[in-house]
């Protein structure tokens, strides 16, 4: 497989859901390109298609029309296992909930996302945790961590494979303002190593963004 390029883009993308005779569009004719090395914010009111756009850009969902690509790697022209491989090796994900595995420690939860769970991965996970001020938490179970700590562990999990793109879907929604700010600052710092795409409805969280994409009713807002 050729190593894909680094630009994230979608062209004339629509995502429709059909319920009987009724068709609802989550996205309609969206075209955009996100060059690497920037912090992108996707904003819009509830139901505007923010999360859908993030899932399309990351290959988690396939558009019903148009195409999304990472460099020259066009998702809907590839097998789902190849797309999963790109997500595993080139992308990192942070969701609204941390989704940590309850029976694993913080460090083990991080290493779960590493391409190979070897000694180097554990070492790297430990370094990242320490780098984000979470020394001493590596052996704690998720039940022993606060909400903010859990989400920061999930951010570190997203970074363990040195992703080209970090995708974050409402990463601060379940956090207080201080913890939310901390998580967004951590994500924003990644732009020196790759792109960061954050979906949020809170404009305050995107004050440092290089570009903000606004959506309304599934369309890009000019």
């Amino acid at each position: 497989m050729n190593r894909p390029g680094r630009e994230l883009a979608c062209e004339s993308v629509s995502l429709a859901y059909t319920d009987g005779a009724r068709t609802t569009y989550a996205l309609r004719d969206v075209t955009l390109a996100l060059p690497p090395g920037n912090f992108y914010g996707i904003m819009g009111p509830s139901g505007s298609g923010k999360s859908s756009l993030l899932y399309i850009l990351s290959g988690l969902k396939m558009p019903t029309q148009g195409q999304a690509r990472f460099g020259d790697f066009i998702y809907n022209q590839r097998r789902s296992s190849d797309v999963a491989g790109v997500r595993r090796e080139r992308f990192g994900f942070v969701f609204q909930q941390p989704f940590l595995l309850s029976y694993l420690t913080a460090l083990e939860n991080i290493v779960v996302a590493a391409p190979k769970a070897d000694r180097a991965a554990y070492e790297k996970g430990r370094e990242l945790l320490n780098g984000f001020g979470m020394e001493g938490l590596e052996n704690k179970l998720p039940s022993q961590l606060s909400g903010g700590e859990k989400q920061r562990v999930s951010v570190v999990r997203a970074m363990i494979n040195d992703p080209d793109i970090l995708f974050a879907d409402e990463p601060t929604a379940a956090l207080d303002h201080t913890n939310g700010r901390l998580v967004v600052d951590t994500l924003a710092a990644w732009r020196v190593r790759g792109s960061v795409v954050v979906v949020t409805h809170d404009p305050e969280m995107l004050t440092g963004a290089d570009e903000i994409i606004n959506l309304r009713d599934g369309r890009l807002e000019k």
Partner: protein
Amino acid sequence: MPMGFVIVLSVFLIATISTLANSIDRTIFTIYGYTNHFTYVIPQRVTQTVPNDQLAIIRGDARVDRIMEASIFFTNIKTVIGSLPFVVLGLAQENEDYLLKRVGTTLKEGRMPAEGMPEAALSEPLARNKHIKLGDLVAGPTDEGGISGAPVPVKCVGILTGPVWIAVTSKSFCDNVFLAAPRCTIYTTKNPDDLMTVNQLFSPAKHRQDGKLSPAKVQVLSRQNLIAQVRDSLSTMFLIMAVVNFTVIFVIALMSGMLANIYFTQRLAEFAVLAAIGYQRWQLIARIVGETLLLTLIGWVAGALATFAFLSAFKESLFEPRGLFINPLDLFAYQYTLPIPLAITIFAVATIAYRLLLFDPVSIIERR
């Protein structure tokens, strides 16, 4: 946890039942273990003694060591399948000495039965089974059931020790008291290892006139006949057990599979996030297979250990006094439980793998 507990209980249940069922023939072979050392031949009802032509056949084999006439009576013993008659051999002194030596048995306590007296000596496990000690009655007029009992009370005067169950009295006592009882013939072989071959040669075969013992004239109580009778009478029970076992395994596999699915549903978010961050479906399925295999393996080992501990703990205190000779390490019984972890793993993995192949991780992440 509940699934592991179900596996432990089911392995315990099936291994215990199988061990107990297997103990039935083990019990019979233990009680009648003397058939490994000698064979006795009883005349059919037509004559009181083994007919001369039949004796001639036995004498005619050069491998036969000694042929002894014995007068017998029976005493009841307890077994898992109820009371069974156990033969008390009335032998001439010389033959008694010979036979006890042949079966490796010696007097441990008391004395040997006196000539013509209503006395008997029993081996230790036999005395334990009947709950009798020196001076107690071995058989008497009030004994119940079929062929067991004696017209006069027969006392235990000696306890024997050795590897086989055996009971002896004097021949003269039997001859004087059991007037109409058949006299049987006991034979041994010079080389004890030849006994089975000689038994095979002598065993009466219907519709065959080739010089072997005739079933119309004698019954041969040999090791082979004992095994054949036991296997025949237990075959139906083993069939029932196999059906019960299959049903239990099926139900448990179904139940555990459903438990595994409930457990999987509780962990859907975990699998969704793993799929989202790039785990392939086969990796998720491999994870489930690994976890299920580990759980069933631990459950099986724990169940097998629990069975072994239970059977070992109660072997001597509970089972043996009731005439049930169990082997707590009965490998056949443990083999019988192997389909449990296999069935559970296959059922659980198949259903979960199907769900994993169909599920949409995004819809699960979005729901939260």
